[in-house]
């Protein structure tokens, strides 16, 4: 091993702009400068992604070398490296790069969804660009509106490849690549397919990582405005657990500010007739999915049947499309439970409509989700078990924030309010669905208690083994002194796994295929890094620091709730007593709350 590599991580002295700093050997110039508050402009760099050195806006001078070097990729190994981050030469070089980028960026800022939150616009502001040195190119592309989730306007693309890298590195999907070369090069799909034909999971991580407005969600705000303003329509909204920990960021609040009460007030002010909590359906999911797991275990352990284990969660529509595309032969491992969004939608236009005496035809169900794949899920043809499309429109966190701003609602000053009944109360277990590991923790709190009659043996019900951002976590819990009806589980060590981000899901599925998961009973998989709180519909930017802050908000809100376990949600119990009377996984719930999957495969049919 060479001397330099061996000493990575030791402290060395470097000089930046004439001042001496201590740095970790092997850090990039960009990291050292960021740690010391020295501003370096970036576009292709993102905390989630490997350094790429593509856009070159971050150029700096290293030891007075012939060429300027990219700060994002230059690792400092030599002690006494002399770095200059601003000089006439550097300023001119960065400015020229910016002017060239602006020349091929077509589109008007004031009609752009990212107006006010665009990294290119920010740089143009910093560099005082008041006119364009190079004539702007003519538009080259037609916008791609084919996907139900994601809108592509490649004329706004600056080819930083953050979408390509997010899709590869974080999600292992590879929907996007860079085609051609030189001035003809462009970000595109395999065979130039439209997004709805391409191998895409609709997760929206490309959107979340785009520095400009080239990638955005398909807009549902106009349809929702129309519904709200139509007096004939009864418009209900459900809000996913991850929104309340993130939407505040859109109004200038620091990441990790929990704004549940202000959000419900804002939605009511906006004109929704009822504001419900998706967490109610998350509690329902736990009862259905937990029961399903216990039934699978019973079938395997007692009846010796060939049921698929491990059972894998099915809440994340990006993950569902991923397994359908890449592991179509393994979809039987998925829980048949619909996601909370879809359980909620199915109950809205059946149970709720019947109880309230509302014609489901006159109902519009909107869901507020941290997710672009939920737009796809809502439009899956099988998601109509109420006899209508169960969920009509899906708004991302960003879209909802824009509507609140448009309505002129002073979000940060609002008073707190509660969700509406009967779908307002939910447990802390449902709330933590928003973080990776949350579904597992919620399921364990309930399943353990169903089987043993006792609470999970962890301090304050916090199952810390399920928490944190490690790519794939495993753990186990031993079932002892079980109730008589679950005697077949006595002494069983229930093994679980948790993965988030589809690249990690890919690893899990490869291991499963090799038979390395045969002793695992239950796996939670969420498509997006960090779980829903890092979803493709969340405020931009999202980084690990921001994900952690949102997770903290979710876990601390859980601790403060009176009900912490899904099976203690009184409304869920009411539903089983009065509507789904044959219980979890019973006939009625199978009709409304469970679903089936489409083994798609990715050897493409054009």
């Amino acid at each position, binding site marked *: 091993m060479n001397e330099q590599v061996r000493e990575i991580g030791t402290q060395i002295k470097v000089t930046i702009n004439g001042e001496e700093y201590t740095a970790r050997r092997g850090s990039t110039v960009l990291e050292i400068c960021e740690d010391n508050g020295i501003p370096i402009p970036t576009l292709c760099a993102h905390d989630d992604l490997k350094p790429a050195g593509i856009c070159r806006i971050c150029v700096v001078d290293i030891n007075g070398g012939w060429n300027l070097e990219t700060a994002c990729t230059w690792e400092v190994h030599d002690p006494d490296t002399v770095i200059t981050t601003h000089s006439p030469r550097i300023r001119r070089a960065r400015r020229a790069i910016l002017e060239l980028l602006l020349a091929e960026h077509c589109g008007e800022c004031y009609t752009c969804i990212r107006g006010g939150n665009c990294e290119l616009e920010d740089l143009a502001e910093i560099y005082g660009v008041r006119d364009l040195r190079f004539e702007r190119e003519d538009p080259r592309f037609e916008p791609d509106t084919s996907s139900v989730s994601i809108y592509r306007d490649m004329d706004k693309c600056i080819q930083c490849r953050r979408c390509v890298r997010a899709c590869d590195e974080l999600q292992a999907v590879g929907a996007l690549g860079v*085609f051609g070369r030189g001035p003809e090069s462009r970000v595109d799909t395999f065979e130039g397919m439209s997004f709805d034909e391409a191998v895409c999971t609709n997760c929206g991580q490309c959107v979340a990582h785009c520095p400009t407005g080239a990638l955005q969600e398909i807009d549902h705000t106009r349809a929702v405005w129309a519904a709200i303003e139509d007096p004939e329509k009864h418009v209900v909204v459900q809000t996913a657990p991850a929104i309340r920990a993130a939407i505040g960021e859109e109004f200038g609040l620091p990441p990790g500010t929990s704004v549940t009460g202000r959000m419900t007030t804002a939605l009511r002010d906006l004109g929704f007739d009822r504001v419900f909590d998706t967490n109610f359906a998350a509690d329902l999911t736990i009862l259905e999915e937990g029961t399903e797991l216990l039934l699978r275990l019973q079938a395997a352990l007692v009846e010796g049947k060939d049921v698929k284990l491990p059972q894998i969660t099915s809440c994340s529509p990006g993950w569902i499309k991923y397994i359908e595309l890449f592991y179509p032969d393994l979809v039987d491992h998925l829980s048949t439970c619909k996601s909370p969004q879809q359980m909620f939608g199915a109950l809205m236009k059946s149970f709720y409509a019947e109880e309230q005496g509302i014609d489901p035809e006159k109902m519009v169900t909107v869901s507020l989700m941290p997710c672009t794949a939920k737009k796809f899920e809502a439009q899956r043809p099988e998601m109509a078990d109420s006899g209508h499309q169960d969920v009509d429109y899906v708004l991302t966190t960003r879209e909802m924030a824009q509507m609140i701003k448009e309505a002129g609602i002073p979000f940060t000053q609002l008073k707190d309010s509660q969700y509406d009944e009967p779908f307002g109360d939910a447990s802390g277990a449902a709330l933590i669905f928003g973080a990776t590991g949350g579904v597992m923790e919620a399921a364990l709190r309930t399943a353990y208690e169903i089987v043993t009659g006792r609470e999970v043996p962890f301090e304050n019900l916090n199952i810390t083994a399920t928490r944190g951002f490690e790519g794939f976590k495993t753990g186990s819990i031993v079932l002892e002194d079980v109730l008589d009806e679950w005697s077949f589980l006595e002494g069983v060590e229930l093994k679980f796994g948790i993965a988030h981000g589809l690249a990690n899901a890919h690893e899990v599925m490869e291991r499963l295929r090799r038979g390395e998961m045969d002793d695992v009973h239950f796996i939670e998989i969420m498509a997006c890094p960090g779980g829903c709180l890092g979803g493709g519909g969340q405020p931009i930017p999202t980084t690990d620091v921001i994900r952690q802050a949102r997770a903290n908000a979710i876990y601390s809100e859980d601790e403060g709730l009176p009900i912490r376990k899904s099976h203690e949600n009184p409304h869920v119990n009411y539903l089983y007593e009065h509507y789904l009377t044959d219980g979890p996984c019973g006939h009625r719930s199978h009709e409304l709350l469970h679903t089936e999957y489409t083994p798609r495969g990715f050897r493409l049919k054009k």
Partner: protein
Amino acid sequence: MKATAGVDWCEVVDALAEKHDRKPHALMGILQDLQMEYGHVCPDAQIEVALALGISPTHVSDVISFYHFLCSEPKGQYVVWLCQTISCDMADKDQIAKALSDELGISFGETTGDGLFTLEYTNCMGMCDQAPAMLVNDEVHVSLTPDSAREIIAGYRREGGLG
């Protein structure tokens, strides 16, 4: 050049992956072999290459689109590559381009109706001392004049017509 109809790409690519390796670094070798054998790398073959190497089909086609000498659509029996780089450009390659275009009745990037010729530009082939130069499949022709370019094409036409 072999025909592509009815080829079992899974089998073909498997043999090439065995030869080159089943890792991403084997990509160029496999693509060059496919291009050589079949004259192009069709989308079905690209998908099999991706599966064999554990990369995305998008990545495979992204690489093909970058290189002039790899393509995903079939080209003519003879691909004429006229050099467009500085020395050839200064040696009046535009006149050669016009002669080739007139002789074949097609523009650059197109293939003749009989499937015999495709006309393309290429970047420097290292024949700068004998500019202007062109490549027809893997044969180099140098110090071209409009007349010699037309004659060279006529020669291939005779050869192709016989084949």
